[in-house]
């Protein structure tokens, strides 16, 4: 199997450090000895076809599942040993919609603030800030049910930012959205990385969401097959584009599966 790895020293404390992580559902191996790290203040893309293991990896990083093999650290905090410290540094946008449709935008965000121990006065101030950040200030009292798919995603991103995490995890955040909404959300996250110093780990299977300057981590059939800058991946696979490189790496991984 082709494996591209040109990782450089990302500094003493990576935003995310995944080390030799494996996970199985019964006999089905979902992740196989996956290791990579993401430097602070970077936008990294997790590329993988459906079933590659992206959501399993995110479930392990967010401590929904326990890391039984290997370790995951968020800014140095082991998710299994210090889950509280690690989760305080993590903002998550899940692939599935997780807003409570019967509640208003404010009630949804306020609930999240309380889950991070943020009192009501401070929560109100932060809610105003994050809604402004995602351009949704006018929808504070609207029921989540009344929002479009793109607007719901923006609210979920605002929610993920509410406790001011230094690392954002976004699992196929643009799935099911139209082209304009997709581009807008992606641009917002990139802007946050550039202006706020946030690190973002963006899972997708859509090649057009990858920027030439991005760090890409490619999963195929639960295996890590690339972990490098886009240009490096293209160079090392001998291809012309990241799309071509991704196809080649995924195909090579599929061929190597017994």
């Amino acid at each position, binding site marked *: 199997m082709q494996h591209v790895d040109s990782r450089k020293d990302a500094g003493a404390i990576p935003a995310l450090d995944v080390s030799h992580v494996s996970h199985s559902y019964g006999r089905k191996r979902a992740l196989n000895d996956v290791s990579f790290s993401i430097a602070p203040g970077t936008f990294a893309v997790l590329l993988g076809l459906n079933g590659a293991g992206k959501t399993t990896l995110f479930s392990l990083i967010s401590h929904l599942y326990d890391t039984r093999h290997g370790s995951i650290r968020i800014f140095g905090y082991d998710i299994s040993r210090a889950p509280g410290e690690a989760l305080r540094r993590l903002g998550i946008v899940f692939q599935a919609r997780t807003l409570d449709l*019967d509640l208003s935008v404010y009630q949804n965000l306020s609930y999240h603030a309380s889950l991070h*121990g943020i009192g009501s006065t401070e929560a109100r101030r932060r809610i105003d800030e994050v809604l402004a950040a995602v351009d949704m200030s006018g929808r504070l009292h609207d029921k989540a049910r009344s929002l479009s798919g793109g607007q719901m995603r923006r609210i979920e991103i605002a929610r993920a930012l509410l406790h001011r995490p*230094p690392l954002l995890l976004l699992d196929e955040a643009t799935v099911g959205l139209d082209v304009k909404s997709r581009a807008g959300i992606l641009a917002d996250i990139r802007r946050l990385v550039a202006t706020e110093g946030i690190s973002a780990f963006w899972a997708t299977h859509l090649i057009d969401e990858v920027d030439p300057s991005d760090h890409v981590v490619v999963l195929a059939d639960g295996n890590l097959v690339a972990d490098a800058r886009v240009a490096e991946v293209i160079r090392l696979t001998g291809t012309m584009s990241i799309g071509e490189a991704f196809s080649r790496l995924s195909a090579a991984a599929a061929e190597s599966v017994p």
Partner: protein
Amino acid sequence: MNIRPSDTITAATAAKPAPRFGIGNYLVCLKGILIREGLRFVNQRERFISSLVRPLLWLFIFAAGFRQVLGVSIIPPYKTYVLYEVYITPGLCGMILLFSGMQSSLSMVYDREMGNMRTLLVSPFPRWFLLVSKLLAGVAVSLAQVYVFLAVAWFWNVKAPPYGYLMVLPALFLAGLMLGALGLLLSSVIKQLENFAGVMNFVIFPMYFASSALYPLWRVQEASPLLYKICLANPFTYAVELIRFAFYGKIEWTSLAVVVAFTAIFLAGAILAYDPSRGLMTRKQDTGGNG
């Protein structure tokens, strides 16, 4: 765009230990979970109405119809003959708590399928605290339902001594905790919403009918010794008796001990099942993504 009043993040600032959560933070979290559960209940009016209609139907129709058939002798805590409606009222309170506990379990399965559950589980507070908060929120909602039911029953002339309405509160709370904890435990093992019908058939109905909720145990013993033994092994029987005695300002110690013990067992089981390092959640594939 600026979401931080302070400087941009550096690796060093991000890695600095955050201040530990104090009691105030825990209370904020608990309050948030209580408010959310309350809002959900208020927003789902059908749930409120159906939770009330079910016991009222039993009280108005079933009890009226069976009053003559199922005469009740003088048994503690009653000092005189009581109407059958009065006898089954504690059982109907238990029924509300039982259905509410299972409803809360259903909503957790729904939340898990829909993804909402994850927002709770990725909170930095300890998992046991989140589950206990969720349980307390469910119990608070079910207590409100019980008191609305008791108010309607009062107008129907089914009354307990006035002090009983206050005395019964701790008993209702404990019974609600036990049944809510059972619901929590069941929600951890139910994979899909469709499986919930099984809970109705195999948990709710057997628990309710094989108990002292509808008929005194001495009558059950006369009719079927086996069913009597089953009733004695059913924790719901003890929840109902705890409530029944509390209405008259009395503590039924055996019931209290059984309810407390089963609450501890169910809750420990639920906390274990939802613990990512030991529980069942890790072993089964989630439905939240396809990556």
